[in-house]
């Protein structure tokens, strides 16, 4: 359940941004890598719990999971890693994982009226 800490950190950033833009956030998009994942359900549950009775309790989230990419040691192509069967489309299991995407708050939709 590291999603609780993620939700708390996110809440802090969102309230900073809300103050900066002097507007109410209604939706947010976050993204994460496959090796730095969050569980969507656990995250939504955690955020709901800490956002209750705050201006952010109805915030909607879109969560994008970015695939991990790797560089093949044989054909030198870059490819998306399928962790249930990690191999290059050329068949090679000789590859180097590229750095995984970190957890990012990508964008916020603010109410404009």
């Amino acid at each position, binding site marked *: 359940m590291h999603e609780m800490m993620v939700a708390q950190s996110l809440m802090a950033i969102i309230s900073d941004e809300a103050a900066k833009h002097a507007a109410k956030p209604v939706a947010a998009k976050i993204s994460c890598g496959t*090796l730095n994942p969050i569980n969507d359900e656990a995250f939504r549950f955690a955020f709901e719990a800490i956002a209750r009775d705050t201006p952010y309790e109805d915030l909607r989230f879109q969560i994008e999971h970015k695939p991990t990419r790797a560089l093949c040691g044989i054909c030198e192509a870059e490819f998306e890693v399928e962790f249930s069967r990690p191999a290059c489309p050329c068949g090679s299991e000789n*590859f180097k994982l590229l750095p995984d995407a970190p957890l990012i708050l990508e964008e916020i*939709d603010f109410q404009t009226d």
Partner: protein
Amino acid sequence: MEKVDIGKKILHENEKYAFENIMFLAEHKKSCLNMISSPGSGKTTILTRTIDELKGRLRIGVIEGDIQTDLDAERIRATGAPVVLINTEGACHLSAAQISNALKNLPIEDLDLILIENVGNLVCPSAFELGESGKIVVLSVAEGDDKPAKYPSIFAKSKLLLINKIDLLDGGHVDFDIERAKADARRLNKAIEIFPISAKTGEGMNNWYDRLEEWAKNPGL
């Protein structure tokens, strides 16, 4: 509705402390290794045996992460090594801010090496950089040889894999294909070093001790 690009790392607070820890360790020229595993893989037994057998060779300090109790910290304390306990009060991982605080409570100048025993969990701790010199993943043979394939994150990020409890392989008490576990870990992480050990019988521990000495001498290794 107005869409605003933010592009901020959500765990930036943790990263700030992790960077502080990197600077602190560099300033004091110390290595600090973060040991991560499932509960029951034998981390604490590895630590107590290591501290005992390296007495006179390496002065080790321990940062002990535990959810609630001080049971593990007491076992470390019994060896005479300095230990700082972090109770996470239910949280499933240690954070860089907790390590920052713990480092300041260790007698750092009297130590050659700092070992962190993270909370027993093969998933969450891998997502939190602590500013450590390297991650060590411990896998015991009783857990099954499929763990590197099923939990790729920690095996992809670790410098070294300790395969513990290999004494159980004798006599066929567990079905654990050590070559499969090694191959799966190396597929994800070509550079990972792998030491099969038994912290109970001492088998293989000398390789681990030599590696720790190298790390203590050169934190960059």
